């Protein structure tokens, strides 16, 4: 036990004396969360749009007023002819054009149906989608108000198909993903680097030629990072609660338990990486390419798994991060308990045991 404590103490000296790594360790989660939360957002503000109103009647004017009154859009141009639409887009400022058909009011009242075309600049597909969703919701709102006032029901059909929920903030979607990435990075990359550093410096030779046992070295290496990763997880959760007002719906204890489980599985992966790499550089490359990319691309964090080709979907099952993200979303957003996520939890436990087993077995008691 004394040996173990001595070892852990030494690890903490390393960690706290390496200012740069320490900054990355704790600066990164904060920066990432803030970046994803504020900068990379699906919400829009004051988007410049143009209007082409063939009808020019009372109803279209009212709708246009509603749109220009919203904080999302500012109408910067009124155009006269269809031919102008393209030139307006080409100038680049205008992100969308609303094209009201001729006799809009007449059609609406007579046929109970009128059409407004929403043209969006899809060079940035996300923004385009969001814009059309916002316009859509304004139109719907207008419709509902009208339906209350007049007893006759009529319908405005708009062409875009997606439904947008203005209540759903994008940061809610990012928090579980970012938390997964950070925990993976800190745990796996930092442990693999710290073990390979001993190899590179030659201190591993001295450790091997000493009575300290392999599992003492491994646990001694892993322990400080469990501690640091838990702190990181707490920072992320606190940031999302207090800065982004994102409530954690489910049990905090369950959240803590699942996080530690994921951290341990990532640490086991880190040890595994360190057994196959001889230098810190290799360990870092393998961690980045072998862990980070799959976590970002295949875990369902950014790209939905259901829309991936079948082989990739298959691969995604092998990625612990995928299961952790499902668990996180379940606990944080839906507020579910263990009864809904026991399957994912079991899979994570299985993976952790497997990685730990392999890495203890692969840990060399000699140099080759």
């Amino acid at each position, binding site marked *: 036990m*004394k*040996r173990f*404590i*001595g*070892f852990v*103490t*030494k690890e903490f*000296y*390393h960690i706290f*004396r*390496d200012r740069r790594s320490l900054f990355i360790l704790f600066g990164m989660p904060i920066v990432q969360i803030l970046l994803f939360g504020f900068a990379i957002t699906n919400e829009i503000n004051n988007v410049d749009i143009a209007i082409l109103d063939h009808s020019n009647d009372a109803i279209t004017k009212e709708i246009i007023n509603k749109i220009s009154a919203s904080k999302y859009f500012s109408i910067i141009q009124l155009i006269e002819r269809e031919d102008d639409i393209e030139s307006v887009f080409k100038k680049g400022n205008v992100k969308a054009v609303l094209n009201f058909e001729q006799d809009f009011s007449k059609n609406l009242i007579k046929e109970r149906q009128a059409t407004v075309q929403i043209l969006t600049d899809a060079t940035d597909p996300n923004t385009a989608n969001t814009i059309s969703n916002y316009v859509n919701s304004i139109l719907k709102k207008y419709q509902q108000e009208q339906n209350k006032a007049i007893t006759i029901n009529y319908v405005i059909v708009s062409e875009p198909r997606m439904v947008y929920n203005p209540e759903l903030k994008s940061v809610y979607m990012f928090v579980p993903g970012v938390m997964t990435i950070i925990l993976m990075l800190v745990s796996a990359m930092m442990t693999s680097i710290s073990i390979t550093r001993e190899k590179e*410096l*030659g*201190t591993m*030779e*001295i*450790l*091997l*030629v*000493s*009575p*300290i046992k392999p599992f003492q070295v491994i646990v001694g290496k892993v322990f400080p990072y469990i501690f640091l990763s838990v702190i990181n997880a707490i920072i992320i959760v606190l940031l999302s609660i207090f800065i982004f007002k994102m409530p954690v719906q489910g049990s905090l204890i369950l959240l803590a338990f699942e996080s530690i489980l994921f951290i341990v599985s990532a640490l086991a992966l880190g040890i595994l990486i360190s057994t196959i790499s001889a230098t810190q550089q290799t360990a870092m490359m393998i961690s980045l390419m072998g862990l980070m990319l799959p976590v970002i691309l295949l875990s369902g964090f950014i790209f939905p798994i259901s829309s991936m080709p079948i082989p990739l979907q298959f691969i995604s099952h092998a990625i612990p991060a995928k299961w952790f993200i499902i668990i996180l979303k379940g606990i944080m957003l839906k507020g579910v308990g263990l009864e809904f996520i026991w399957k994912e939890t079991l899979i994570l436990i299985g993976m952790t045991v497997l990685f730990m087993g392999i890495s203890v077995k692969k840990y060399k*008691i*000699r*140099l*080759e």
Partner: protein
Amino acid sequence: MGISINHISKSYKHVKALQDISFDVKPNELFGLIGPDGAGKTTLFRILTTLLIANEGNATIAGYDVIHDFKEIRKHVGYMPGKFSLYQDLTIEENLKFFATIFGTTIDENYDLIKDIYVQIEPFKNRRAGKLSGGMKQKLALCCALIHKPKVLFLDEPTTGVDPVSRKEFWDMLKRLQQKNITILVSTPYMDEAALCDRIALIQDGEILQIDTPETIVKQYPKTIYNVNASNMYQLIMSLKAYPHQYSVYPFGEFVHYTDTRDGFNPDELKQYLQAQNLSNITIEKTQATIEDSFMEFAK
């Protein structure tokens, strides 16, 4: 309590690192393994410290087999690898404490053994190892290797890259350690350090050239060596090499070490020859062989 090495061979992919190495190190002996870089010294050290497994042969350290009893060996040997292998971001005291702890002991318990060495670096005990001079690093590394009172001490090129003053101090420390019942195996590429060992093994390209006391090895040198000097070093070497009776011609500091193939060699004859080659200020004097001469003779 010594070391016994029997027919050890080791190959890497294409290279034979060690070929049929056998020798014994007696208890409390200061034994030197002398050879250039790439001779196989480090490989042998790693096999003896249980870090590598030999392809053939076996070895025992203090009676323990290097393969089967590796756990016992790891408790009882001290090892100082060739590269400076301490934690640069830890202070002198933290390094020493750490190694004491993992060997299950404390600094106080074995302070007697390291006292002589440690007092020299103790004034800087709160300085990080990375900021120490070469000589101080080396002393700290030795303290760390000694902290658990090992029976056998392995020092792989401890004096490489260290200045002459620190080198001398280091060898003085080894002599004192020997008095405290520790068997020491030390490797070095410096031939002049051979004389400081009780016995030495000369090693090159994975093969042992000779094992004996430094005095005996030098005494057994088969030829008479002459120190030859002249005004132009390059011309002197070329002329000597062109001399039909030369056996060996090696530049040796300000002289050239010359040996002749004939038993009844007359230096005057050589002098005349050199004069005919337009060399001036020629001196030819008998000199003693050194370990380096012997090494070259064996390696020839």
